[in-house]
């Protein structure tokens, strides 16, 4: 593995008496494609929320390029190069598809407020560039013909794609995808896995995804981390995870030898 881009060092997240994530350590390299899996409520999204600054870990720290980012504002973390999508899609619904992408360029804007108000040459040049680049990005996601549609009028699959495109428009080093295949049919999922590969190749970024669709995870992930009740119970290559006893137990429950179980242990 090459040098690590993001590191979580012994992070724990407590909500009152509930420990949502407990002592998790993981490292992701510059161009890795990593999946986090686990049953519902295992703390996967909480992990994402800690990386993106929505929560600050109770114990431990998150570093990006060796610099501590936990306790920074989400907006600052985006500026440093982490982008994400949401489990329940969060688009700017009443704005056009193109505007959704343009908003994501916010942290990379070089003109100042007065350039915008007085429409200086700098403003015009940069806006032109932003529009061109945004359309290029939409083309990659095959959404360019829908650029003037309102985001809320897109079909579900297209909304998911738009959310990914919008995250990429922030020019991240690390992209976090929270259940990108949720609610998609097998054909769409297939398309999605190709798209994720393409993104990684084209932009040279690292991707972490949370996913329940095991076909997708096993197909594209290079390394898998498994969470259960906030604990990291396993990590490794897809084949290793598939045969890991603890993982199978977490998903399907442990085998119980019925005949040998005495009444009081139940």
């Amino acid at each position, binding site marked *: 593995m090459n040098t690590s881009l993001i590191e979580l060092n012994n992070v724990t997240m407590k909500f009152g008496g509930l420990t949502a994530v407990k002592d998790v350590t993981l490292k992701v390299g510059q161009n890795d494609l990593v999946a986090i899996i686990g049953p519902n409520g295992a703390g996967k999204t909480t992990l994402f929320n800690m990386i*993106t600054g*929505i929560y600050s870990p109770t114990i431990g720290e998150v570093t990006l390029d060796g610099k501590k980012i936990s306790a920074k*504002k*989400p*907006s*600052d973390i*985006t*500026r440093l190069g982490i*982008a*994400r999508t*949401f489990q329940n899609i*969060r*688009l*700017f*619904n*009443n*704005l*056009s598809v193109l*505007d959704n992408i*343009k*908003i*994501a*360029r*916010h*942290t990379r*804007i070089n*003109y100042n*407020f007065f*350039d*915008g*108000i*007085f*429409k200086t040459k700098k*403003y015009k040049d940069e*806006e032109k560039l*932003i529009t061109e680049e945004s359309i290029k990005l939409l083309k990659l996601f095959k959404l360019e013909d*829908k650029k*003037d*549609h*309102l985001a809320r*009028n*897109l079909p579900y699959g297209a909304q998911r794609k738009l959310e990914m495109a*919008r995250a990429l428009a*922030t020019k991240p080093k690390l992209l976090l995808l929270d259940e990108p295949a949720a609610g998609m049919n097998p054909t769409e999922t297939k398309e999605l896995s190709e798209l994720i590969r393409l993104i990684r190749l084209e932009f040279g970024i690292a991707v972490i995804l949370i996913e329940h669709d095991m076909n997708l995870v096993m197909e594209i992930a290079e390394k898998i981390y498994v969470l259960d009740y906030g604990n990291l119970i396993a990590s490794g290559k897809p084949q290793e995870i598939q045969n890991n006893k603890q993982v199978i137990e977490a998903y399907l429950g442990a085998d119980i030898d019925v005949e040998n179980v005495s009444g009081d242990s139940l």
Partner: protein
Amino acid sequence: MDYYLQILTNVGIFITLTLSLNLINGYCGQFSLGHAGFWGVGAYASAVYGVFFALPVDPALNMFISILIGFSAAALCGLLIGIPCLRLKGDYLAIATIGFSEILRIIIMNTESIGGPRGFTNIPKWTTSYWVWGLVIVTTIFMLNLKRSAFGRAIISIREDEIAAETMGINLFHFKLFSFIIGAGIAGIAGSLVAHDQQFLHPNNFNFMWSVCILVMVILGGQGSVTGSIVGAIILTILPEVLKMINSDVATWRVSIYSALMIILMLTRPQGIFGPHELFEKKKFQSGRVS
């Protein structure tokens, strides 16, 4: 003739006010009900300058200084009120802003040196139609250009989804505070125009009802729409006068008719006349719709 000119001036002042509230309410999606307070602060600050500190220079220059003072005073209040209040959302923010604007009004009411409950008199007449309509044009251009710049887009994205906006790298607090300060400042400019137009101010002219009135203009035109705000302000400023003019029966019932028209409009077009769009871009969006 003077009467019509006065209505025209009022229309201009209300357009400025409506546009300024549209920045806070329509663009940024923050439900503020304290706009009359900022308007009043601007008016009184300008009046204080006009009465006590006016320089012996050309009225136009004095008016310019007075507008700057009105803007700064109201923007400062926006800053001071915004910092604690903008942590709140929706209805809670609305109630907090009502509270603050009433506090401002009551402070004015109890300050003897600026007339207190008797009202502030002898304010020099500096406002001209040029000032009013010049500022309407400046504010309109400001709002339109802001909307098309990255900063306007950032503000609008906060209205759409705060969490998503923050994840896109937008500092929520900065942009909310920015719209609050600028919105308050522009309301202060409108206050300055009123002070030097009517030459008399009374604290009750800036009470809660006026905040509601400005909000209604924004909603009628369409939240987030600049042209909508202009149309909303024109309609709601002229309508009561027109109803007054028709005949004495209508004049008696004008408040009821006015309210009934509002109800009908909101039932038939809850998003306001233009929705979030502008007069000239409406077509493009309709044809772009899938459903």
